[in-house]
């Protein structure tokens, strides 16, 4: 009897410890994944070429330079500055965002033809970024606390994690599954599932390069069968920790873009 009891106890302890061990592990992977995607370096600069292909196959181009600065080391608030150079009707347009954790981001647009600094009221993180298949939060990273993350399996190359939103009403998906690279922690593939269990939206990374010691996305795409079509991203001229001052992310530099950082 005593032996049985100790076996049960042992079983309980080990069962308990797996639970305890797994919980921080999945959060650890999720945190590392968002950091690998959006937080490399103290700051970063990249040129982004975006090809938006709509459901009829028509292609539109967006070319921009993005500056990003972390407010602290690792996952946390950030500032973004996006300067558009193509097509010509948006040339000189600037989008700026202060990413906040746990509350809505602050966003601005600078419209050069009107010399207008426009504060954006839109709070929906899941609306399209400049008409592409990427949403705002695909670009700036979704708050990790908005979802419940579950460890599904470990393959040779990936940790597979399923994430379910805590507030289902606030998003268009029911869940998403991420394949996180075990070495780089980049989420190489993310599949979004609707309430019928159908996969309708797929993010994938095609090409990664090591730049200044950081695994860096060079090519990625988002396919969306609900919208139709896809958007292809190409990153170039990526540089980390070049010392972008926090004051860049202000009205001064909306009105007068910081040439030094945008070249």
């Amino acid at each position, binding site marked *: 009897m005593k032996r049985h009891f100790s076996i049960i106890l042992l079983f309980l302890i080990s069962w308990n410890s797996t639970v305890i061990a797994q919980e921080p592990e999945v959060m650890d992977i999720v945190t590392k994944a968002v950091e690998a995607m959006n937080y490399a370096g103290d700051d970063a600069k990249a040129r982004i070429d975006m090809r938006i292909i709509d459901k009829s196959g028509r292609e539109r181009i967006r070319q921009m330079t993005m500056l990003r600065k972390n407010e602290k080391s690792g996952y946390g608030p950030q500032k973004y500055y996006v300067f558009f150079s193509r097509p010509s009707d948006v040339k000189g347009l600037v989008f700026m965002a202060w990413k906040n954790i746990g509350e*809505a981001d602050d966003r601005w647009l600078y419209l050069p033809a009107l010399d207008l600094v426009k504060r954006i009221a839109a709070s929906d993180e899941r609306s*399209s970024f400049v008409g592409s298949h990427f949403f705002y939060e695909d670009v700036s990273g979704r708050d990790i606390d908005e979802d419940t993350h579950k460890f599904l399996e470990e393959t040779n190359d990936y940790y597979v994690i399923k994430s379910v939103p805590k507030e289902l009403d606030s998003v268009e998906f029911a869940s998403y599954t991420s394949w996180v690279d075990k070495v780089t922690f980049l989420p190489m593939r993310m599949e979004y599932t609707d309430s019928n269990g159908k996969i309708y939206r797929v993010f994938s990374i095609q090409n990664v390069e090591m730049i200044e010691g950081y695994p860096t996305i060079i090519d990625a795409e988002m396919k969306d069968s609900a919208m139709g079509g896809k958007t292809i991203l190409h990153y170039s001229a990526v540089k980390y920790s070049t010392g972008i001052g926090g004051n860049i992310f202000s009205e001064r530099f909306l009105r007068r873009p910081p*040439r*030094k950082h945008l070249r």
Partner: protein
Amino acid sequence: MREGLFLIAVCLLSFDNVIAGEVLEGAKSVQIVSATEPGSASTRDWGINEEKREPIIDFYGYIDARFGMRTSGSTVSDTDISLGEIRVQLKAKKNVKQVTINIATDFLFDPVVDRYAINMNNGEGVIDPRLINVEFSPIDFIDAKIGRQILTWGSGDFVFINDLFAKDWNSFFLGRDVEYLKAPVDAAKVSFFFDALNIDFVYTPRFGADRFVDGRTVSFFDRENKAFRGRDNPLVFDRPNDWFDDDEIAARAYQSFGALEAAVYYYNGFWKSPAGQDVLDGRSIFPELSVYGASLRGPVAGGLAWVETGYYDSAAGASTDPLVRNSEVRFLIGFEKEISHEFTASIQYNLERKLDYNKYVNALPSGALKDDQNKHLLTVSLTKLMLQQNLVLSAFNFYSPSGKDGYVRFNFSYKVSDELRIDGGGNFFYGQEDHTFFSQLKNNNNIYVGVRRNF
């Protein structure tokens, strides 16, 4: 005094060449490099090859054709066709050392207005330069922009209290792109950036009036003669026009407190559209005006809210002179929110209150049309993005409960491709009486279409 300030701005321009500092990044991380040695520090960071790829001058712009018709039918005072023009805008930006040169010029063929002599003041004619300016940072905490430029500040949505930079109301009412609401001004803007406060100072050496409704393209109601006036009988006016005497000063001090943006404003110049009449020759005049104001803008309840106020101190003697607009206090409050997916709504309330109303009423000649003391204005704006943001539908309504009149704007804009955009819409003025602010424009109700090709 004002002449002196303008000279200071000019000195700052020449001073820039002396220090030749790479000062774009602001006070905290200034990197001084020699502008005469392009192989040194600046190229270490970004590579000289990238710089070489920059074209000598990068021209871009658009060709825009636009046609509009009056739906109210032509009257004695205007034509059936409200808008008919082909416009080419050429833009170029060139960096020479630390100085940025901005140029944007419209070349215009407009058989409806049919006046081709170039007028730099009101934008008429075959060429309408919108930007000809230089930008530079003479000292790390100062930016300067000198020359012809577009200037905007303040918090309102198509309602302006402290933004006293020139507007083009004709373009706004007839269906040109919304960017034409702002008319260019010839000015020197110097901005100071400190940790505690940012200050903008704009000196306009010669008064830049609005491109106001004068009857030539948009007809209006003449309150004195109680009749509509249009292109056959346009407004005759006397515009302050002397360099350095008829000048304007506009200043703004602003700071952010977290996500909350606060600003105070000052303006000294003239009413931007006619606000009085010369007693002797009956010509419309632009009385002197000073404005003191403040604004706040920030996130509230999942949206964005703003409040702005201004004290309009009209010319001396305005209180008892029925021919000069009264001093006013103005107040604006607004709220904007995304109410569903890619659908944004905003509401605003605006008050214009005459400050010497009793004196104004007593001074009015008998039989003259009398304004209310308070002019209330409500605006509602709806904007919907569709088809991956390539189609934008918008509606904007101004309604004045005091004047019982209003103005509604509809617009659609569809990007066929990155190069081609079509748009269209309508401008409709309504009201019970002929003389009220919007109602007087009701002969100008119009619909329009436009097509724009970017290059």
